[in-house]
Structures are given as structure tokens and as C-alpha cells.
């Protein structure tokens, strides 16, 4: 006797998603970004806060020689000396800094045992910022911030949105009226202004930014969940849970919510992208993640002053491109998900 297997809607959706070339490419790019963000310390040549003031505001592709000096305070991160030439004579290293001044330092003051250990000529692929920090390194670390903001803020938004949407849709009546009033109040503020408002209220900082974005972006989720629950509530299997004497929490979270996951997932992807933009916008206006932590919005703002000079536009352009790619792939992926979960809306 053969068992007839019925494919679950989510598996069906995943199969449709795999056939969507754009969405698959977006997924791959997204995966690379996540891996790069996780592996940031190993794939970047510098620490994101390492400053080489002699090499500030250098264009993309610049390479300069540096010496690594022992740092007694923190042996893991040696101090860096920018040099134009250097020479090892006996136990002393004589060097010339980029402005032409001559100095010397004891060999023992430098890192390692051979010249391979204490000298390097790294290439700053994307150039440096005004503190001589490597832009590529900061870009990768900025991606960490952007992805964490997306993840954490969206989780907060989902938590609030699902909870409020679910009880509004399940209980209806005055509970629904009260929650919808709250939804309408929050919805009256453009999201980014609400984020700004909460940032003023919570203060500047890493976690404050995540929370401010999270508690500003749950409204769409609550609306969708509520709408879904309105229709799911009328289905027979919900009547069955009542007949079986299940409590409301069990019905809501084990039976109704699972059947509303499609739209929630689609909306979360869009919310993820919006959160990234919100964080960048906040950092751009000086609220949000504070220096010296690298953030794309902040990098764009740092470079903004140089644009009018017509030089070093890379300082603005590279983080802008990074953000555009990030948000674009999230949007493409989200569109793909939407089409996969609901083939009716897919574009002809």
C-alpha cells in the first residue's frame, strides 16, 4: 500500500522560491553578507577602530607601509606606526614617517621576531577615512551593525506585533477597538520620525537604537496578523479547538498563528530592510549607534563633508552601495517569498 504524501504549504512555497532566480541570487548574496559579518575579525586586515592618522583620507587602492609596535596595555592589538622608509641597523629600527621626520625605535619594542612580523604594506582597498581607519574594515563591521539591527529590531517588532495583532483578532470587541486605536496612533507618525522620537527618549547608543526601531515598526505586523486571524477564526478547525476545550492561548499560538506564518515572514523581510534604513538614517543624523562603532549611516555622514570638495567620494559612495545592495537583496528576497507563499499575486 503506498502512502500518498501531501506537501505542506510551506514546503510548496520553498519549492516555488527555489525556482525564482532573482530570489535565489538574493539569498546567496544575503548569505555571503551574513558570513562576512560573522567572520569580520578574520577577513578584515585591521581593527575597525585602529587609527593611522598619517594615512587619513586616502583614496581606494592606497597602500602604505606600517610598523607594528608592542602594546603593553593590550598585547593582542599592537600599536601602528606609519612609515615611508625603514631600516634595521643592529638592534635598532630607523624609520622616516610620511612627513619626512626621522625616528628610531629599539627592535625589541616591535612585535615578533623577524621583519615579516613587524612590517607590513597593506593595501587599503576602499581607502581610509579621516582618522586613517580602513574603510573596507569599517564597511564589514558596519554590516554587522546593520544585520543585527535588522534581526533584533525586527524580532522586537514581531513580538509586539504578533501578540497585539493576535489578541485583537482573536478576542475582537473592545480589546480589538483598544488595540486598533493604539495601532492608529502609532501609525500616525511616519516610522522614521517615531524612531527619532524614541531615540531622543531612550538616549543615544547601540541597544537604544535597536529598541527604538523595534517599538516603532510593529504596526504593520499587528495589522496583518489581526486580518489573518479574522478569517482563520471562522474556520472549522478553530471551532474544533473550542469543542475540544483548548484554552485561548493554545488555540492562538499553536493553531491560528501557524496558519498565518506566510504573510508574517514576507512582512518581516520588508521590515528587516526598513530597520537597516532606519538605523542608517538615525546614525546619519547623529542619533543611533555612536562612534567609534562603525555604522553605514555614520560612514556616509563622515564622507558627506568631503563630497563638496569633489575628492574622496568613496567615503560616501562605498557605504551607500553596500546599503543599497543589502536593502535591494532583502526586497528581492521578500518579493520572491511573497510570490512563493501566494502565487496569485505573482507578477505575470
Amino acid at each position, binding site marked *: 500500500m503506498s502512502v500518498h504524501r501531501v506537501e505542506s504549504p510551506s514546503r510548496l512555497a520553498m519549492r516555488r522560491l527555489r525556482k525564482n532566480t532573482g530570489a535565489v541570487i538574493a539569498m546567496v548574496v544575503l548569505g555571503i553578507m551574513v558570513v562576512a559579518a560573522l567572520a569580520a575579525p578574520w577577513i578584515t586586515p585591521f581593527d575597525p577602530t585602529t587609527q593611522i592618522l598619517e594615512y587619513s583620507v586616502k583614496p581606494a587602492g592606497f597602500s602604505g607601509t606600517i610598523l607594528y609596535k608592542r602594546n603593553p596595555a593590550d598585547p593582542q592589538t599592537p600599536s601602528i606606526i606609519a612609515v615611508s622608509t625603514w631600516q634595521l641597523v643592529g638592534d635598532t629600527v630607523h624609520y622616516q614617517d610620511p612627513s619626512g621626520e626621522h625616528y628610531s625605535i629599539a627592535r625589541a619594542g616591535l612585535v615578533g621576531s623577524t621583519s615579516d612580523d613587524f612590517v607590513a604594506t597593506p593595501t587599503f582597498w576602499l581607502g581610509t577615512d579621516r582618522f586613517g581607519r580602513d574603510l573596507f574594515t569599517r564597511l564589514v563591521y558596519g554590516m554587522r551593525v546593520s544585520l543585527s539591527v535588522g534581526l533584533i529590531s525586527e524580532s522586537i517588532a514581531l513580538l509586539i506585533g504578533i501578540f497585539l495583532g493576535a489578541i485583537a483578532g482573536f478576542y475582537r470587541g473592545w480589546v480589538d477597538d483598544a488595540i486598533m*486605536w*493604539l495601532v*492608529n*496612533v*502609532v501609525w*500616525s*507618525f*511616519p*516610522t*522614521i*520620525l517615531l524612531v*527619532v*522620537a524614541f531615540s*531622543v*527618549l*531612550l*538616549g543615544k547608543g547601540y541597544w537604544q537604537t535597536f529598541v527604538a526601531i523595534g517599538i516603532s515598526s510593529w504596526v504593520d505586523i499587528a495589522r496583518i496578523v489581526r486580518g489573518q486571524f479574522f478569517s482563520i477564526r471562522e474556520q472549522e478547525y478553530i471551532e474544533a479547538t473550542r469543542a475540544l476545550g483548548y484554552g485561548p492561548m493554545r488555540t492562538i499560538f499553536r493553531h491560528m498563528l501557524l496558519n498565518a506564518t506566510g504573510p508574517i515572514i514576507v512582512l518581516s523581510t520588508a521590515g528587516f*530592510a526598513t530597520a537597516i*534604513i532606519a538605523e*542608517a*538614517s538615525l546614525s*546619519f*543624523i*547623529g*542619533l543611533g549607534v555612536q562612534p567609534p562603532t562603525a555604522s553605514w549611516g555614520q560612514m*556616509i555622514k563622515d564622507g*558627506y563633508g568631503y*563630497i*563638496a570638495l*569633489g575628492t574622496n*567620494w568613496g567615503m*560616501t*559612495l562605498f557605504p*551607500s552601495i553596500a*546599503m*543599497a545592495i543589502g*536593502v*535591494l537583496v532583502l*526586497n*528581492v528576497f521578500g518579493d520572491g517569498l511573497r510570490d512563493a507563499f501566494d502565487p496569485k499575486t505573482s*507578477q*505575470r
Partner: protein
Amino acid sequence: MAAFILRKVFYTLLVLAGVVLVTFFIRPPGDPARVLLGQRADSASVSALRQQLGLDKPLAYQIGTYMTNLGRGDMGRSIATNRPVAETILERLPATALLALTSIAIATILGIILGVIAAWRPNTWVDTLTMSTSLLGISLPAFVVGLLLVLVFGVALEWFPISGYVDRGAEHLVLPMITLAIRPLSIIARVTRSSMLDVLGQDYVRTAKAKGLSDASVFVKHALRNALNPVVTTVSAWFAGLLAGTYFVEFIFNWPGIGLAAFSAIEKLDYPMIQGTVLFTAIIFVTVNTLADILYGFIDPKVRVS
């Protein structure tokens, strides 16, 4: 109909009360007076400022005062300039309105045209190009678009000025207007396209074609007119996002509107000014949406019932 309008207006007032309440709480964390004066200020001047701002009163009293003052059109005084917030907002309103209205006009007109062009021959290169460009337009926040436009058209090509107001020439409007228009334009183009494709698939369009009407006539007279409904919704909904966008655009282009005032207020934590600008934007948004809702009530009787 009168009952419908009355219900809408009453609910709007209820929502606005909530909006005011939220706005009231936009203030620096902890003791605002201490934050404003800094850690080194002596406690006498801190408590003097606290008294001056009314922060020594109970919270309920503060909220009550805030609301009654708002009812009289008094949004408090800016801490930085000591001028009434309402005065500053009204003074800067024309600049922001000029920017917002020209942008939404351009976004609507160009968006509909591009959407119709894309829907005219779906899945050809014209369609693909329009849709992928618009996807990029959606993905870029206004300040990034603005900086890129400054870089290309302001600095590299030197076609347009990159900073300043129209009192120094109308060409100052070009870059800020385009910057602000790109996002709504992209969305309107996409909505128009999908709405057109929906309508074009319906029976009455096939009937019109079968009657032997020309393609162009079917497209414009039968399809476009019916496809515009969701577009109108999009435009009115996007007006709010646009108002928020002006904040960033005004900052980048040094455009003397409400957003620029809000920006300098944020830098100084001048919270009455921040409250005022945020509240003003929210009120405009709520009002526009209520008017749109009422308008729909006139157009579509179904809306009135629900």
C-alpha cells in the same frame, strides 16, 4: 453620509489625542533639565530650569497643561532660541510645502506614466528596465539618493546647485525635489503597473477590444481610468513618508524648512521644538488620511458601511 463623516471625525480626534500623548513623552531620558544643562551645572540652575519648563509639577498636570496649550495653538517655546515653536513652524512651512508638493506631483505624474509604459508591453526590456530601476529606487533611503545626486549632478557635472533655497534661483529646487520624489515615484510606478495588469485582464477590457476599439483607446479610456484607484490610495499614504523624507532632504540640501529646524533641534536636544515638528507632521498625516477616507466614502458607498 453625515453620520459617516461625524464618526470619522470623532475617531480622528480620538487618535489625535493619542498622538498628542505620545508626543508629550518625546523628551530626553531621566531629568530633561539636567540633560539640557549638562552634568557640570549646579543644582540651583537645574531646578530653576525644571521649574521654568514646568517639570516640577506632577505628570498628569504637565500633560493637562500641554494639551490645553496645544488647544490654543501654543506648542511651547524652543529651548535654544526661546521663540514660540508654532511661530518657527509656520515660518518654515512654505519651504517644506513647496518641496513636498512639487515632489509628490512629479512622483505621481512620472510614476503613472512609467507604470503605464511598463504595463503596455509587460515582460519586455522596457518593463524590466522600469521595474528594476524602481526596485533600486525603493531600496535607497532618501539621504543616500540625495548624496549620490549631489555627487553626480552637483559636483561632477555641475548642472545644479547643491545647497540653498529658491530665493537664490529656481534651479535650487531641482535636486532636493528629485531626491524626495524618487521613492514615491518608484512605488507609484510599481502600483500603477500591477493595477493596470489587473484591469487589463478583466472581461470588460476584452469586450472593449472585441468591439474593435483601438489599443490606445482601450488602454487609456477603459483600463487606466479604473486602474487609478489603488494609485490614489498609494499617493495619499505616501504623502506621510514624503513629509518625513523632507527632514533628511532639507538637511542635505540646507533647505530652510521644518525638517532643518527639527534637525538642529535634535542636535541640541531642544525637545519642545522636536515635539512640535513631529506633532505637526503627524497632524498633517492624520488629517490628509481622514480627508482621503471621507473622499472614498463619497466615491464608494461600500466604505461608508464598514
